[in-house]
């Protein structure tokens, strides 16, 4: 890195006690101070909150900690969270694959507008995401009377939770795939076509393997958000214990009841999920960096 490149360029000998390449990096005390500030900031703002979750969860010992998972309401919340993720993530995977195929492999007008629209849910507050479905399907909503007449429940029921989750996790898969597939171009697909492969075979044996790591990356992030979403789900769920409570909502209820061990117990599960997600994400970035090319910030 900066210390080993271009040894021929030496800073003025007077600058810095170590002298070497002072012009190409900061003086050592400055480097140390900057590093300590950065690491300290991260420790204070990121590491401490993470640590406190586990410490609080285990504050009364292992027994009460484990007991927080066997409570029937907690189990119901875990089940519902898994169910919602199991619906929302595949839906967004199918959508992401369709959108990236259409956008990256073809040239049509309004392509950039479409990309912007796909990113839209990222800039909508989760609460607003919940609200829009209440305005449509709620008791006073657009279809409210119709739904009541036919006994269809969406708001304060599982379908509403799924809808809100799909909305907030909408762009995750697509935005990982689109830049990568744009980078890869269309020659691999064309090669397969000249060899007589059917469209479906081209997709399964050429396109999908080419984007598999980016797809996994997107799924990882999509799943983390789907399982952890709070604001949007909280607006549409109605928080009916054992029925429409997801894990994050259950955490809130337990916390507001001053049941800290149980609240942080469930929270620690979600924190573990986050850590697994981060580990998987870092592994993919480290091991398959070239297969994720074109990946931008979120």
């Amino acid at each position, binding site marked *: 890195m900066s210390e080993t490149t271009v040894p021929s360029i030496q800073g003025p000998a007077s600058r810095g006690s170590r002298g070497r390449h002072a012009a190409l990096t900061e003086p050592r005390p400055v480097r140390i101070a900057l590093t300590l500030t950065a690491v300290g900031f991260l420790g204070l703002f990121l590491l401490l909150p993470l640590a406190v979750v586990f410490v609080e969860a285990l504050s009364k010992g292992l027994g009460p900690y484990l007991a927080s998972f066997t409570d029937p309401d907690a189990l119901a919340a875990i089940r519902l969270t898994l169910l919602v993720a199991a619906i929302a993530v595949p839906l967004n995977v199918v959508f992401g694959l369709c959108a990236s195929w259409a956008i990256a492999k073809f040239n049509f007008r309004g392509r950039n507008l479409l990309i912007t629209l796909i990113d839209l849910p990222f800039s*909508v507050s989760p609460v607003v995401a919940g609200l829009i479905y209440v305005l449509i399907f709620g008791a006073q909503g657009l279809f409210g009377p119709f739904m009541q007449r036919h006994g269809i429940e969406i708001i304060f029921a599982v379908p509403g939770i799924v809808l809100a989750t799909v909305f907030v996790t909408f762009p995750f898969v697509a935005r990982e795939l689109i830049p990568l597939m744009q980078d890869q171009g269309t020659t691999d697909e064309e090669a397969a076509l000249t060899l007589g492969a059917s469209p479906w075979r081209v997709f399964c044996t050429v396109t999908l393997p080419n984007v598999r790591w980016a797809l996994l990356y997107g799924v990882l992030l999509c799943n983390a958000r789907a399982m952890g979403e709070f604001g949007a789900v909280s607006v549409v769920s109605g928080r009916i214990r054992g029925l429409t409570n997801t894990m994050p909502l259950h955490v809130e209820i337990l916390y507001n009841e001053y049941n800290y061990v149980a609240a942080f117990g469930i929270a620690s599960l979600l924190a573990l999920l986050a850590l697994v997600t981060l580990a998987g994400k870092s592994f993919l970035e480290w091991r398959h960096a070239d297969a994720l090319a074109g990946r931008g910030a979120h």
Partner: protein
Amino acid sequence: MSKAAALPAGRGAARFRRPSALPGFRLTFGITLTYLTLIVLLPLAVLLLRAASVGPAGLWALVTDARNLAALKTSFGLSLAAAAIDAVFGLLIAWVLTRYRFPGRRIIDALVDLPFALPTAVAGIALASLYAPNGWLGEPLMALGIKVAYTPLGILVALVFVGLPFCVRTVQPLVAEIDKSSEEAAAILGASRFRALVTVILPPLIPAMLTGFALAFARAVGEYGSVIFVAGNLPFVSEIAPLLIVIKLEEFNYAGATAIAAVMLLMSFTALLAINLLQDFSRRRFGHV
């Protein structure tokens, strides 16, 4: 002649789409557009229509209602402050993580994304517990006379938390790509390190910093889960706009909720537009995003 009859799709769609030998455009484009419309566009349109149906005068009255206005001010003001803090520390962290080598760097680098991955409710109760008057940080801070939890300061801390990764991750790739030779050129020309930093290295990073700032701001304005536990939620003091939407909904005051949501949406879209323009500018000016 026969050509037109043989290739109606190629001809008819020519103005919209360049013809291609690859299959599946109609299917995938159709699915994309349908799904996007049903899940995102129509619901958002319903919200905007609903807000419009209140009428401009009614909307104005709702927005300028003292409590609503206070909540919006709190949300936007603290979001701006949090995004500014994130932008500064984001640059510092990106710089340190890319330029320096120290033990644990990889793990710390991975940790930067924690706010993306950690459910907001978990972050919320963790921050509340940390900064509560008897918490790990709350207690010593109380001794200094600083109260964080259940005050606007608590909101600020939560917003800094959720926005930080945006600011690090937008700047980081650019720090890694900084052209060494321009640094060297500055050194050869006799610039001091500080001068080189300010005149050569930092300017190309500014668009990315602003992009990160805008992303962090947009996220902070809408943030709910990590804030409400640590905010105290006192009307006129530490009540954020998203919480007010939830409260109005619980009171079945749909018009009030819709009005606040519409204002927030407009702000988010403005931020989104600003981000796009910034990236456009950056691409043209510096050849990268």
